């Protein structure tokens, strides 16, 4: 039996009085492709932001490769993790954001090279080669020396994916990566994700509104509703056989738009 690479155990998150997540239990296995769907405000994004250490859970545990992400041991006691601990544990996790978050002062190539060189201390020439390969893979081999603001949204997002991939993460998180794009640019980004999902063996968690796409590539679909995982299973289990009423309503609304 393969061990999960990430385990959420009874994870809660509140922003002030607003309880976003009310007890999340979730296993992510190596190479598993998970799609998280659900109405806006259901806490989808928060789930992956906690794993990327961008939000701290209010309670509960997130275990990454056997290590508690948000807590560390000190004198036999579990205390709140410090920055060093977070840095040690999140090294194998990568993320692509809704608004790309490319570094505007660096060229496309520099965007992809900076972290492997300065964070992982890898050889510069080797990184350059890998970054170029990756940028060619996402179809931007001719833009290496351009700056982010010279690209379209779809191109920016493909750079952001290349940038994350060059770090060779074991887990890749996609936070509504097509939501900020013009409709005609969504396809090119989804193509890249499909390519990654098929050919790379990292685990992927996609928070998305692209329902058909999600169901197509995902091994497991989570339906998040009112802060809990209301339904989970393979795409066909969730779509065709679920009796969850709110899920059916949600899917119906999606289909009818």
């Amino acid at each position: 039996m393969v061990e999960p690479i990430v385990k959420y155990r009874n994870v809660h998150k509140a922003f002030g009085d607003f309880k976003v997540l009310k007890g999340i239990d979730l296993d992510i296995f190596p190479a598993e492709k998970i799609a998280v769907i659900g109405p806006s405000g259901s806490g989808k994004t928060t789930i992956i932001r906690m794993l990327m250490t961008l939000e701290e859970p209010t309670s509960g545990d997130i275990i990454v490769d056997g290590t508690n992400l948000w807590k560390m041991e000190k004198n036999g006691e579990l205390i709140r993790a410090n920055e060093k601990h977070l840095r040690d544990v999140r090294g194998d996790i990568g993320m692509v954001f809704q608004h790309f978050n490319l570094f505007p002062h660096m060229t496309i190539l520099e965007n992809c090279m900076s972290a492997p060189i300065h964070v992982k201390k890898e050889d510069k020439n080797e990184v350059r080669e890998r970054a170029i390969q990756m940028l060619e893979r996402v179809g931007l081999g001719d833009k290496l020396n351009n700056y982010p603001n010279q690209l379209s949204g779809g191109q920016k997002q493909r750079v952001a994916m290349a940038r994350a991939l060059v770090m060779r993460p074991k887990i890749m998180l996609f936070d509504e990566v097509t939501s900020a794009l013009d409709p005609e640019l969504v396809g090119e980004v989804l193509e890249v994700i499909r390519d990654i999902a098929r050919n790379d063996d990292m685990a992927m968690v996609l928070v998305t509104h692209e329902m058909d796409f999600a169901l197509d590539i995902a091994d497991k679909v989570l339906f998040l509703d009112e802060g809990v995982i209301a339904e989970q299973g393979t795409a066909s289990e969730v779509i065709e056989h679920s009796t969850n009423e709110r899920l059916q309503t949600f899917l119906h609304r999606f289909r009818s738009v």
Partner: protein
Amino acid sequence: MNSTYWSWDTFSEALPIVLKGLGITVGLTITSFLFALIFGFVWTFLRRIRNKPLNWIITWVMEFIRSTPPLVQLFFIYYAWPMIPGIGVTLSPFTSAVIGLGIHFSTYIGEIYRSGIEAVDKGQWEAAKALNFSTVDKWRRIILPQALPPTIPMLGNYFIIMFKEVPLASTIGVAGILLMANTYGAQNWAYLEPLTIVGIIFLLLSYPSAILIKKLEIKMNTRFDKKATLENTKKGAVM
């Protein structure tokens, strides 16, 4: 009778004497400004430490420094500080002026840095985290390269303001152009010409600097667009 009020002879006699102080005036401006640029960072980073009492103290120290006249601070550093038992040190007029003006302006410059840092998009911090940059690398490679360039025009304005405050140092004996002019005036009972020269020197140096900063500001506002335009122009030329 005109010569009673204005004499070109006095003017040409005073000019080289006043100009002797120019090196000191410009040197003091540059040294104090560098001091302020570095010390500004100290304020900025002290304020970022998440510690309520410390933040409160820092905020009030900065407020105190900004709310008291730089002249009083200069006098304090030059005349009063040496009298404090234990920590009192006698400093040269120039060093006192560098510390006084430098610290005074560092509180403003620290605020400029802060505004620059706060203007960096939240997503940049998150991307730095997602790529697992260390705290030092995050600041050095991601945040500061974006936060600082837009502040250059504002810093330039403070440079000019500081330049115009530097004559305060003449009161504690720094021999810049104002003290030179004053001394000449006292010796010859002719203040009009040397002080006019001082005014002209300040105008000649401040005004072009202000124009330069204005240009810099426009350049900074369009800095990423410019790269794009240039690149496109090149491409257009090739095609």
